[in-house]
Structure formats: C-alpha cells, structure tokens
C-alpha cells in the first residue's frame, strides 16, 4: 500500500478517540485490579451488561445513551457491592483468592454472558444518539462525534474519579488500602468497607464505559471477550494503580491498534492487543508508566 500521510494522521487521531473509550473501560479495572488486587475478569462483561441496559433504558425513556449511563451508574454501584460481598465472604476471608477467586469471576463472566444471550438474544443491539452521524472536519482530519463525544465523556468521568481519589477522605483511604490494608485498621478505618466501596465504584465505571461503548459501536453479548485482553494490557502498561498512566496507556494502545487496522485491516487488531500484553508482561511487567517494584 502506498504511504499516505493524511491516512496516517487520521489513523492516529481516531486512535486517540478510540483510546478514550479504552481508558473508560480500563479505569474501573485500574481501581479493582490495580488498587484492590481483585482480578475481576468479569469487568468487560459487566461493561457490556451496562451497554445492554443503556440500550434498553435509553430506548424506553428516549434519552441519550450517555445520560442513561450516568443515571444507571448507582444501580451498578450497588450490584458491585453485592459481588464484592460474595467475593469477600467466600474467597478473600478464606485466603482462596488465587485459584477459587479467579474461577469465581470467570464463572460470573460466563453467567453474565449467557444470561445476556437469554434475556436480549444473541443479535447486535445499538442506540444511535442524534449526533451519531455528524463529523467535524479540521483540515484533512475527521473528528466523528460518534467517537469524540464518548471519548470526552470518558475523560470527564476519569477526571471525576481522579479528583475523588485525591481530594476526598474516602478516596484517600482507597489509595491507602491499596498500599497497606493493615495500617488502615490502625487508623480505625475498616479496610473491608473501603474495598467494598471502591469495588462498587469500579463496577459503576464499567457501566458508564458501557454507555460510551454503545455510542461507538453496536454491542452483542460476547463483545466483552475482545476487551479482556485490551483492558488488562492497558491496566498493566499503565502501571496498575495509576489513573494518568491508565489514560496514557489507553491512548497509546488506541493509536497502535487503529493504525494497524488502517494499514492491515481491522480483523488484525485483537492480535495487536495480545502481542502488546505479552511483550509488556515479558519485558516490563511494572508497566510502561509504572515504577519498578
């Protein structure tokens, strides 16, 4: 293929926009996997569940998907607390996180996926907002609102999370529980309560990412599978618990994947995700933006 500068530029820009979506998907995982050390492989499946409820509620109420995503987030927060309670009671307390805990989340992922097929059917669902077919043009570069709006939405929600984690007392306690749960006990804060709260937040973020996902592309029950590799790769590359690192990694990831898709065809992009993950794990397990352990 002939090298084309504007094609490359467009690939980079839409990769950055795609990266915004990935950042939304990975930020919740940065909280659960990065900070709480809970390997929630059901995270992408919960994101897809959020996407389906956005479609269902949005169609019913006639609202914009992103508005619905914000409105439904508290429900998912409560759902996440329920999952954490079960996880804590059966696995964390017994010290069975490694084998049984992983199997638990895998089972949850599977139940969600099959459950979605049973409730909504296996076909693709979509909900187009009014701006879905508008594209802004700056010079040679296209800025489709279908990508731009969810990307900005993702940045806003991650920004809110960042402020919460760094400014509020509970937010600081979440950061503290990531470092030393026992020390937290000495400050008369119950680490389990903090972890429960943080896990609830991570699931609420997953559902908001689901809203962003619906704007970008149609969803089907198995859409989560492709995201598992992506979100874990981004989370690890970003240095696990760091939100800025997560955003940087997501944007970089989006660009690499999108440029690959532009020049080699979109069906190859999942392979990029996996290749990156393996390379990062093999050579820089502390992440591109993380500090050595």
């Amino acid at each position, binding site marked *: 293929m002939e090298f084309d500068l504007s094609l490359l530029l467009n690939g980079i820009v839409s990769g950055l926009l795609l990266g915004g979506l990935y950042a939304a998907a990975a930020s919740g995982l940065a909280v659960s996997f990065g900070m709480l050390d809970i*390997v929630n*492989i059901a995270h992408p499946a919960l994101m897809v569940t959020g996407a389906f409820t956005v479609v269902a509620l949005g169609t019913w109420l006639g609202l914009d998907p992103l508005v619905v995503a914000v409105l439904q987030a508290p429900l998912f927060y409560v759902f996440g607390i329920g999952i954490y309670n*079960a996880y804590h009671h*059966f*696995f964390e307390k*017994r010290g*069975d996180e*490694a*084998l*049984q805990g*992983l*199997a*638990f989340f*895998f*089972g*949850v992922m*599977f*139940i969600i*996926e*099959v*459950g979605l*097929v*049973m409730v909504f059917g296996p076909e693709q669902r979509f909900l187009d907002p009014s701006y879905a077919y508008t594209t802004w043009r700056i010079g040679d570069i296209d800025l489709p609102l279908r990508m731009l709006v969810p990307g900005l939405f993702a940045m806003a929600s991650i920004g809110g999370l960042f402020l919460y984690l760094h400014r509020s007392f509970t937010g600081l306690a979440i950061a503290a529980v990531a470092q030393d749960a026992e020390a937290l006990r000495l400050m008369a804060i119950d680490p389990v309560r903090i972890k429960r709260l943080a896990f609830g937040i991570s699931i609420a973020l997953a559902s908001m990412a689901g809203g962003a996902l619906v704007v970008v592309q149609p969803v089907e029950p*198995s859409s989560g*599978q*492709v995201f*598992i*590799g992506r979100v*874990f*790769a981004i989370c*690890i590359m970003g240095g696990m618990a760091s939100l800025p690192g997560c955003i940087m990694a997501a944007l970089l990831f989006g660009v690499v994947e999108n440029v690959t898709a532009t020049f080699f065809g979109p*069906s*190859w992009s*999942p*392979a990029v*995700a*996996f*290749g990156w*993950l*393996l390379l990062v*794990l*093999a050579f820089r*397990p502390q992440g591109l933006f993380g500090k050595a352990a």
Partner: protein
Amino acid sequence: MNTHLRFWLGAAALGLALVAGLRLLGNDYGYFAGYFVLQYVVLAGAWNILGGYAGYVNFGAAGFMAAGAYSAIVVRQWLGWDLIPGIFAAAFVAGLLGLGTGYLTLRLKGVYFSIATLCLAVVLQTLVVNWDYVGGSRGAYIIHARDIPPFNSYSEMLFIVMLALAIITTGIGRAVEMSRLGRGLQAIRDNERAAEAVGVPTLRLKLVATTLCGALMGVAGAPLPYYSGYLNPEAAFSLAYAVNAIAMPLIGGAGTWAGPVIGAVLLASLQQAATVTISSALNLWIVGWMLVIFVAVAPRGILGWFRRRA
C-alpha cells in the same frame, strides 16, 4: 509399581466394559454422547495438571483445544495425515503454545499467566478467522470414510480413540501426582517462595506442567473436526470449553487425579441430558452457576467433601 499396574489394568477393563456395553446397546447416539463426555475427561484432566496441582489457572482451554483441532486439519490438508498422526501433531503444537505462554508469563505472579491464556484464545481465533487455508470464518470440512474395518462404525472408532486418550490422560495425571513433579507442583501451590527456598526448581516444573497441560488440551481437540465433520472458529473456540475445563476439576476435586474424571462425567452427562431435553443456552448457564456455587461452598470439590467426612 504394583499400584500403577493395577490402575492400568483396571482402567483397561473399565474401557473394554464400556465398549462392550455400548455395542450391546447398538445405538450410534451412545458413541456420540460417550465421546462428548470423554473429551471433557481429557480436557479436565489436562487442566488439573497445572490448575489442580500447581494452582495456576488456565483460562485458555478453548484456545489450546482449537489449536489441536486446527493442527489436525492442517496436517490433513497439507500432508494427508489421518486422525492418529493428527493427534500427535496437535500435542506438539499445543504443547509448544503452552510452553511459550508459560515462558513469557510464569516468572511473574500467577494471575498474569491466567490473563494471558484468556487473551490467547481470542487472538488465536483472530488468526484462524484470517487464515484462508483452514477455511477462515467459513470453517473447514473433513470428509471421512463411513466405516473402518475392525470397528462397527466410524463413530465407534472415534469413541474408542477418545476412550484411549481419556485413560492415558488420567494415567498421566496420576503418574504426575505420585512423582517428584507432582510433589514439586503441590509445593508451588502451597507456597511458591518457600518451595523455591528449599530448592524446588519452580520455573522448570511450571514450564513442564504448562507444556503437558497445553499438549493434552490439544489432544482433546484433535479428533473434534473428525467428530463433527465440520469445524468453524466459533465452535472450536467456544467459551463453553474453557468454562467446563475449569468447572469440572473444581467440582470433582482439583489436585487429585480422580477429581477431574468425576467432575467431567457428572457435568458432561448433565449437559448432554440437558441439551437433549432443554435448551443449550440454559444448560451452559447451569454450568456457570454450578461453578460459582461449588467454588464458593465446596472449594475442595466433591472428593474434598468426602475426605473431610471420612
């Protein structure tokens, strides 16, 4: 040595009894259902070697199994090899895949290996979908002879091959459990640092286990295209294999050679019965729930339950 001999003789006798019983039944469906159960005995036994003894969770059973199935297809198209050499090719390819994944991720915490295996399945599927030689997303057909002389029918032959594979896998699992390898893997599961400190070559043992686990999963998949006559990526990489490979050993009792057999026979028969009587989406859902409930309530599985009481 005596107990080994007794195991092999007992397994062979049980196998012969199964074949004789199904011949008496004289129904082809018996072979199909039997094959379905036995492929899970192989898959669950393979998962158990790494997951049960060493405590490392392999989520990519579907990926390794499909690697085996497509290896069998490739050697058939390329070299004209039939089922049995196809099984060896599958073991080689899937074993290599296991070794590679293990080598890249096992020096880190165990969860990275799990995550990597989960993604491996997705990526292998991408590769196969893009690979026209094996049919791409359209799938590949395998046309086989109707009958093969010493056997009554082709499905009987497949059943007997799978039966032999199931016995061999269980025997390997049992041999691993009783060998230095198995004891080393158990030490890794209980405390990897302590194991390392007393001189257990942890990385080497884990790599042997991932290779063995991958190879046996590939073996479980190799006869699959012959069994169904047609294979597309969606069927080969079905998440049902991955969830069953984990659920069966955990429900039967992970870390014991008999656990995966019990779990596989129980769960696969249940699924076979449910597929025939209810819907197939619902029966997968039941497996998911059984996995979650069992790991929560009976983390040592059915065998562990009995052991505690005895």
